């Protein structure tokens, strides 16, 4: 599996983010003869402990994060950021968690859009919206350089590509989300667990931006 790099849109001071930003990004991709291939969707959820009393009497993680990818519908990924843990499970684990009722879904973010092939680059361009609303929370890009599976080598290539690709843009820029794979004991070989960590980190960032 090759390495995916996430970028989030940071508008310039005084500029408001809107869906127009995504349209401009897509036009830039298509101007370089990027070919639209498919839709994509990633659902990221935040869960909180379901405690019967308001005062916590049991030690448990304050926040549980979950991700499912439209490309891998038979798997579900959990992350506990404080505990530095990513867990991969069969999709049935969602049904088990619903039966157990120990954690309740508080918020869900949908990352959705279109995927493009641009030479050796695969780019997902999309928006982050709060589930069941049209409340736009962010514009995101996922960039994947197919010939390389090394994290460090692909990082340099993708960074160079993004620098050139968004040169001249004045309304803002796409900023890389720096993953902290090593803190989570993830293996060196990139996997969907790494991608899950990136998207829950992006979800947490999107929530924090809204609060500020």
């Amino acid at each position, binding site marked *: 599996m090759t390495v995916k790099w996430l970028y989030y849109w940071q508008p310039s001071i005084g500029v408001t983010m809107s869906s127009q930003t995504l349209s401009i990004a897509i036009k830039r991709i298509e101007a370089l003869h990027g070919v639209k291939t498919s839709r994509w969707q990633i659902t990221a959820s935040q869960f909180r*402990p379901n*405690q019967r009393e308001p005062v916590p009497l*049991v030690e*448990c993680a304050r926040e549980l994060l979950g991700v499912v990818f439209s490309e891998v519908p038979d798997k579900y990924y959990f992350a506990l950021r404080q*505990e530095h*843990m990513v*867990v*991969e499970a069969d999709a049935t684990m969602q049904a*088990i968690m619903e039966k157990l009722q120990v954690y309740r879904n508080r918020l869900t973010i949908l990352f959705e859009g279109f995927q493009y092939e641009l030479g050796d680059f695969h780019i997902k361009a999309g928006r982050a919206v709060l589930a069941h609303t049209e409340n736009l929370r962010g514009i995101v890009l996922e960039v994947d350089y197919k010939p390389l599976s090394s994290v460090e080598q692909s990082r340099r290539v993708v960074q160079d590509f993004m620098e050139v690709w968004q040169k001249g843009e004045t309304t803002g820029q796409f900023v890389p989300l720096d993953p902290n794979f090593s803190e989570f004991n993830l293996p060196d070989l990139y996997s969907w667990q790494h991608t899950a960590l990136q998207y829950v980190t992006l979800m947490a960032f999107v929530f924090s931006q809204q609060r500020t």
Partner: protein
Amino acid sequence: MLDRCMGARLPGSSHVDALEVLLQGLCGGLRETIKVHEICLKTGPNLGAVASEVHLCCSLSQPEPVWSVRHVGGAMRGAGADQLPALVRPVLEAGISNNSLRFMYSLGYKLDYEMLRTGFSFQLHKTVPIAVTITISVTAVHRLPKIHAVDDPQPVTPGLQMVQVSAPASPDNYSEVVGAISGLAEYLAPLVHLSKPGVPAGIVPTASTAAAALVSRGGITKVL
């Protein structure tokens, strides 16, 4: 997935060998070795709408441990359920990565008990009257004297093994699946009386004779 099961106790290693011969003939398939470290976890106080229990199973019969989570719901109740010769209950299972125990502890679950199950299983694939895969397992349960010490297990009931017959079903076909399990139970009758879990079945009086005959012949013709 709804799970139907019937169980029985099987005494003596010769009976176990005979049952294996019988199952080999009936099922014709591969014998699967069972060595599962089963960890039962329960929620601590105040967590969850109701207290809940979940089982983490670590299969140790392959070169690398394979982990799964298993949630078993309450058995089907009512007059209709009482008439059935098998127990019907909802079961959910999911494969999970090998950090699952630390994950469940982080979610507030505590160790209730653990055990090691060893033995073997066969699968019987039936197509008539319905397509169903029946699993027959013969296992012994062991306690672990120290936490997670699977290398030093002690049998809970020395000399006794549990025979369990189960099959997945849906709400649409559970009565047919129960029928299929009951039909299989008849083939095992020379050696074991299978009954609903919780209902004593007793030991087949002529089992020893049947076991000796099966083992001495070294196999039987498949009867279906």
